[in-house]
């Protein structure tokens, strides 16, 4: 249940970014979470709701984009979804892959701001 630590880190990063755009108010934080990031999106949303209370981002929503894990087989050039649990072998030529293309993302991609109304 490290999602609370992750949510806190998301809030800190987003608050830092928001300060540069003050006095605009953050309405949402956009994150990308890969299938193999070891983070459960539902637990992250729950943790974010708890962690945001009493902060400058108390009204911000968390928008999670879930990223499918994919890999590339170097010999045949095929890209494939590794699935859950992951199978890091090419389904076409049955060789192990050394190249994961997506699935480990755990990043903030943007914040949505509402300008302070005049």
């Amino acid at each position: 249940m490290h999602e609370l630590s992750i949510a806190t880190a998301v809030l800190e990063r987003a608050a830092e970014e928001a300060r540069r755009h003050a006095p605009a108010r953050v309405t949402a934080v956009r994150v990308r979470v890969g299938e193999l990031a070891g983070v459960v999106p539902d637990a992250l949303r729950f943790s974010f709701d708890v962690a945001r209370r009493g902060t400058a981002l108390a009204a911000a929503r968390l928008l999670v984009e879930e990223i499918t894990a994919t890999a590339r087989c170097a010999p045949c050039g095929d890209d494939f979804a590794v699935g859950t649990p992951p199978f890091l072998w090419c389904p076409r030529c049955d060789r192990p892959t050394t190249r994961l293309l997506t699935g480990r993302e755990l990043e903030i991609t943007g914040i949505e701001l509402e300008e302070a109304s005049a």
Partner: protein
Amino acid sequence: MCRVIDVRQAVLAENDALAGALREELAARGTTVVNLLSSPGSGKTALLEPVLAAAVARGVPVAALTADLATENDARRLARSGAPVRQVLTGGLCHLEAAQLRGHLEDWPPDDTRVLFVENVGNLVCPAAYDLGEKLRVTLMSVTEGEDKPLKYPTAFGLAHLVVLTKTDIADAVGFDRVAFTQNVARVNPGVEILATSARTGEGLEVLVDRMLAVADGAAVHRPTMEGGRAAAARRAHVAPGPEPGRPHARGRHRRPGPESLTAPQP
């Protein structure tokens, strides 16, 4: 009016940067960190006790830092080896972060320490997400935990530089299926070495110490696919001898000589 600001930042950027700095700082001090991950009760402490003792017997200065939610029992057990030991109490936190580790490294371990073992909190989920500045990440599992554990906790096994199977002395009693286990490990982490060990019989302990000291001496470390496509050359250097890397192996053919070492056959 509403607007969207593009940000492209890893959520754990701060931890990762700190871990990277720690890795460099420790390398300059000649110390290599080995991060040990497993479920509670897999036998991390029971394995680390003889590993520390073996290193001490070889005259290699090692130290250990052990993390638990509560109690200093593990530190007391490990200190019997004669190696310097510290206990980190996380106070309920389920994993160690680089900042916590750094807090203990101001004037510790002693300057000549070659390997610092970090026994992470017993948990196969959260610790996998946090780089501690280690050069070798070891995921352990005991034979009582079920052959499919690597599939249930793919991140912990998928990011391992080395997988250690523990309690092999009771493998037959619990009907542990080694072939299925190695296939499951190979599925999430192709090419990673698996060492079979028993703290009770001593199986695999010297080989484990050899592997850890070799890494401290600069030996190449396996690069898990899940870690990204970096350092393919280092990874190739670590694959067991035999068929060239990337070639399909006949079932069971990938096994290394000697009873202490299994290597992932084709899943």
